[in-house]
């Protein structure tokens, strides 16, 4: 049975099982929307370069529950660092039993419980805000199956000094699986938090992840967000990170893609209040047949906002890289400063890059620029190094490392930076520089 059929087949069963209420009505509307638009094809302008049709026709299992992995497996994916919270999604389902967190600074609840709790106002306010920007079937599909997701509230005035780590583990030992994690983070006034999302898989079958994470950042709060994808090439991924800057606040987001099958990362940064500041960084370093597509939207709604975006890509083997950046400056958003840059290195003739940096500006007193480049390693720089006795492999690695370091430097938690640095060195086939 193809995935498209499985979705139709499972919807009613899961919907009845998950009950009604706030999430129920959201699911219903979203499913209607999904049925109208379906899985996007390359005829859809926003999906021009990324094809999902073959995945949609493959057989994937879709389950509302997950089997807990062994401690051994869990330990193997853990980052070696202290943490304020450790939250596990196993096959797209948030498992509270194996997760742990500090109680004083935050509230952690499964989404369906949160909908009944004292925090339900936040759900009304912020849940599914991403659908305003993501009009395609994938976003609706996630909403249509939202039940046991994750709700996290960082309490007012709390500074969480250690990172919150979300592990997404996809278990594909037996079957192909389709998983849809969903989370909502609310960061209250004056709170500060570092958030890490790490994607790992276990098993040799294929997986297809369709994730939505929504983060609402309130007045004077500070968010650092890191998304790291380190799966195998059997793992396909469509993910949306929706950052809503409700009050005047600061956000810093980094997406790093090292491995995978067909990957699409959507990141939306909505600067809803005046004087907001947002930074977006991304690194995609892929080889083999990996296809990585980074889609970003920066929406400047109110005046005096600042946004900066830098994405860098290294493509080897038969890989393809896609960058699609969109900056909106609305009519009220005078005095906006918005920058966007995308740089790519092609390492082989079978790799390709498609990039589309776009500006849509409706206010006049703004400073906006974008730039993009596609090129290769500078032959003269290579020669310079080789003339000094550094062999070709080392020289290339040195240059690529320097190229990637702009982004790597933006990864503030040390453990994560070391982890990514090590992966890059492994890829370049060197021990250390």
């Amino acid at each position, binding site marked *: 049975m193809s995935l498209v059929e499985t979705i139709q087949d499972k919807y009613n069963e899961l919907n009845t099982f998950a009950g009604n209420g706030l999430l129920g009505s959201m699911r219903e509307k979203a499913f209607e929307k999904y049925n109208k638009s379906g899985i996007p094809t390359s005829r859809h302008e926003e999906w021009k370069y990324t094809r999902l049709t073959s995945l949609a026709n493959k057989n994937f299992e879709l389950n509302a529950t997950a089997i807990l992995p062994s401690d051994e497996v869990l330990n193997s994916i853990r980052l070696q660092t202290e943490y304020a919270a450790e939250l596990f999604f196993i096959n797209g389902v948030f498992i509270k039993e194996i997760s742990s967190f500090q109680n004083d600074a935050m509230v952690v609840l499964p989404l369906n419980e949160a909908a009944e709790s004292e925090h339900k106002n936040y759900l009304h306010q912020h849940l599914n805000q991403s659908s305003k920007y993501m009009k395609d079937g994938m976003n609706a599909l996630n909403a249509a199956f939202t039940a046991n997701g994750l709700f996290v509230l960082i309490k007012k005035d709390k500074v969480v000094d250690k990172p919150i780590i979300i592990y997404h583990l996809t278990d594909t030992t037996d079957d192909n699986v389709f998983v849809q994690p969903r989370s909502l983070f609310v960061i209250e006034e004056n709170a500060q938090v570092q958030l890490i999302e790490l994607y790992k898989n276990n098993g040799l079958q294929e997986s297809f992840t369709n994730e939505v994470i929504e983060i609402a950042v309130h007045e004077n709060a500070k968010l650092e967000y890191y998304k790291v994808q380190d799966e195998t090439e059997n793992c396909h991924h469509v993910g949306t990170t929706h950052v809503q800057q409700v009050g005047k606040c600061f956000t810093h987001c980094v997406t790093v893609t090292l491995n995978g099958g067909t990957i699409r990362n959507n990141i939306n940064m909505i600067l809803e209040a005046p004087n907001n500041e947002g930074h977006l960084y991304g690194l995609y370093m892929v080889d083999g047949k990996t296809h990585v597509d980074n889609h970003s939207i920066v929406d400047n709604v109110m005046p005096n906002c600042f946004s900066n975006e830098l994405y860098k890509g290294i493509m080897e083997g038969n890989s393809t890289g896609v960058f699609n950046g969109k900056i909106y400056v609305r009519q009220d958003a005078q005095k906006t400063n918005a920058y966007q840059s995308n740089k790519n290195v092609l390492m082989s003739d079978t790799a390709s890059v498609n990039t589309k940096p*776009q500006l849509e500006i409706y206010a006049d007193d*703004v400073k906006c620029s*974008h730039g993009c480049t596609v090129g290769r390693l500078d032959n003269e720089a290579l020669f310079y190094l080789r003339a000094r006795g550094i062999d070709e492999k080392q020289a290339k690695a040195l240059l690529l490392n320097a190229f990637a370091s702009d982004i790597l430097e933006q990864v503030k938690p040390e453990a994560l930076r070391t982890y990514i640095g090590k992966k890059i060195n492994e890829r370049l086939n060197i021990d250390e520089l």
Partner: protein
Amino acid sequence: MSEMIETLEQTALSDYKYGFVTDIEADEAPLGLNEDIIRFISQKKCEPEWMLKWRLKAFRYWLSIEDKEPTWANISYPKIDYQNIRYYSAPKQKIAPGSLDEIDPELRKTFDKLGISLNEQNRLSGIAVDAVIDSVSIGTTFKAQLAEQGIIFCSITEAIQHHPDLVKKYMGSVVPMTDNYFAALNSAVFTDGSFCYIPKGVRCPMELSTYFRINAENTGQFERTLLVADEGAYVSYLEGCTAPMRDENQLHAAVVELVALDSAEIKYSTVQNWYPGDKEGKGGIYNFVTKRGICGANAKISWTQVETGSAITWKYPSVILKGDNAVGEFYSVAVTNNFQQADTGTKMLHVGKNTRSRIVSKGISAGRSNNSYRGLVQVGKNAHHSRNFSQCDSLLLGDKCGAHTFPYIETKNSTSIVEHEATTSKIGEDQIFYCNQRGIDTETAIALIINGFAKEVMNQLPMEFAVEAQKLLAISLEGSVG
């Protein structure tokens, strides 16, 4: 400088000075579009059978996509009723003019008023002109002189009759009839346009030019231009256009094909000044144009355009860099004011080795207009060592207009280098202050800065056009600054 002030003063009095209507009797087709209309056009033009067949084939293809009018562009307009357009309208002339002297004086006056000289004696302008009004070409100047060097310059209708081999070989080779919605429509109903062939190794001694004028009401203009530069030839070609002021929108859907064979060079300049509609956005021309050129080895095609008119502009002059070492260039200034909408840009398709392309696009938006740059740079697998540089700058005058950039960059070759950069800003207060300090008033200062902003493109225009284009720039923005 003094010229700038003069222009501004002049234009304070008149908004669109080409908006008059010439009262001439016209020979028209009935409203509507069907196979009979196409047969009617073909018959009027005394076309051979193969041409009619070609048109009908295009029409049948268009019918199959009739409901699929493209919607991807960043423009909005009410649905066009293709049955409510007149597809053929020609000024009635008792006998076909044997020479330029026999042209209806009323028509001659019209072109004089537009500043286009149909007098060959008037050597001052030194440009050969093909004048097209509504659906027919009324005359081409300097034909005999050009023929001495083997250059063919005539209307496309004439070319179909007298040079069928060349037309058959090249027409539709760059823009096939199935290329897009408007190209299919044009292929079916095109009425006139220019044809030019430069033989091997010939450098065309003068600028060639076509002047397009829409006059009749409810009429669409569907021009078709075909330029062929044989090996080693060179030609510089200019195109200008105007239309009367009317309350309803009129459609202009053109196809321009350029063929530059090995080592040839074509320079194609456009100053587009169709009626843009009034200050409330009523009326104006819908300009849907497909322009494309193909380069052989070592050939060069350069597009320069100054877009100031039209209610809607939908135009992407492109170059297919097929041969090795070919060069493509695109220079554009697009100005929108009031309720105008422009979605314009270019496509550079790198196929051959060592191909180079350069894109410079300057957008200026004022009033409530929207101005978009949309471009594609594609580097194919075998386009080793190809190089592209694109620069798109936008200038915003006023807080109700929009400037948008949609560049597409697709690279499949690791030895090529592609660069794109774009900026958007308004005129800086410090720049105005600097000028004020030196005794230049604000309005002049703005004109000065805009001129400087567009200079890189203006410099590419042939002398005769540059002056006119500069004036146009000032006219289009008149009333939007200060």
